[in-house]
């Protein structure tokens, strides 16, 4: 019997749901770390003084931003096994989401650095700071303030992207929901619960990011 909302269902499958939520968080965390690593690499390449590197960095960012992430999940999953590399579905999903997210992270970092005015750099040089000192003490703090909200949004969209990993059977939240739905036919209740869990995760993350932004950068609001 299909009912609108069946609380007993969630109690019965609480372990699967909790495991799914935990897997979603783990997948999200790994993918976010991977996307930051790829993003930093992409940004370094993009802003390189050597033409081929810069070209490659640009190509990476543009190609990845203009193609769907599901393509990379399938591509890596089928492609790596095709050449004899056996990665788990989890690793494939982390790589795919990391490569995709990295393109956006690279753009965010580049954009935030252009927001730091050249006068700041010149002033740091005039005070005879070394380039790395200028980077760490002058540019980075200002750049982070610009980048932080955008990076927060990027983290959230990577977390939402983890739902796609269900197509290669990573046992995360959406995959577990599908399994429960398939065995009980309570698709409505199951996907409603699924949606609520994502909603809670995203809302909590958003609040935390706002709080960090406020505590960290609040006192500089409205300056340069």
């Amino acid at each position, binding site marked *: 019997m299909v009912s609108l909302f069946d609380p007993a269902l969630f109690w019965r499958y609480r372990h699967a749901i909790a495991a799914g939520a935990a897997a979603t968080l783990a997948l999200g965390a790994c993918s976010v770390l991977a996307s930051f690593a790829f993003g930093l690499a992409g940004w370094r390449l993009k802003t390189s003084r050597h033409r081929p590197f810069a070209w490659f960095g640009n190509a990476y960012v543009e190609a990845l931003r203009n193609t*769907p992430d599901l*393509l990379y999940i399938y591509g890596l999953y089928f492609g790596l096994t095709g050449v004899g590399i056996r990665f788990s579905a989890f690793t494939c999903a982390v790589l795919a989401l990391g490569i995709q997210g990295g393109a956006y992270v690279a753009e965010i970092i580049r954009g935030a650095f252009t927001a730091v005015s050249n006068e700041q750099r010149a002033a740091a040089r005039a005070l005879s700071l070394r380039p790395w000192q200028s980077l760490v003490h002058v540019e980075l703090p200002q750049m982070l303030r610009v980048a932080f909200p955008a990076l927060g949004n990027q983290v959230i969209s990577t977390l939402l992207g983890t*739902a796609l990993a269900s197509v290669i059977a990573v046992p995360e939240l*959406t995959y577990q929901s599908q399994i429960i739905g398939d065995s009980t036919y309570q698709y*409505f209740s199951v996907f409603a619960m699924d949606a609520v869990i994502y*909603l809670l995760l995203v*809302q909590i993350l958003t609040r935390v990011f706002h709080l960090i932004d406020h505590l960290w950068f609040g006192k500089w609001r409205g300056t340069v």
Partner: protein
Amino acid sequence: MAGVVPYLGLLVKGALITLEVSALALVCALVIGVVVGIVATSRFRAAQAAARVYVELVRSIPLLVQLFFAYYGLPLMFKVNFTPYQAATAALALYGGAYMVEAVRSGIQSVGRNQWEAARALGIGYWHTMTYVVAPQAIRVTLPAAAGIFISLLKGSSVASIIGFVELLQTAVNIRNTIFSLSPLLVAGILYFLMCYGLSRFGSRVERRFRYGGAS
């Protein structure tokens, strides 16, 4: 690599289906965006809150889950049956609509308060102000954003392959399963890139053209 050549026609057909669904969803999203966007900038608190809830809901739930909900959840509950095509279009329209609401809202808000007051002083009503004063200026902000939303829809429509909608990505996966080569996915990637990159170039051209003080 050569194995994919006989299937190129199929892949292009898949790209056209992707384009069709995304365009249809974009038109619906525009309607949703304009209506809800105007509501969101109105003075009615309850309407503002409702618009906010809609936008937050769509932006906090993965598109895949929204699609599953539309395709598996609603039919069982309300005895309606959607084809994958209908479910995909509806879910993408609601998804794009939420982003469009934000685009329309920021467009309207980019027009200064004093313009409303000037129109008010000239005895122009709300709707005439909206149509002849605010909308032509809001479009500078909204249109480039709409190009970005179209790109998200093109990419997002690939998710609909999971509910069995045969568009570009599903076509590529089906061909891969026949010829056991990654080349169809590569071709699909190139087709996605051509569509999305073209659109993003168009978007930035519109943005440049509409810039205040720029040549127009």
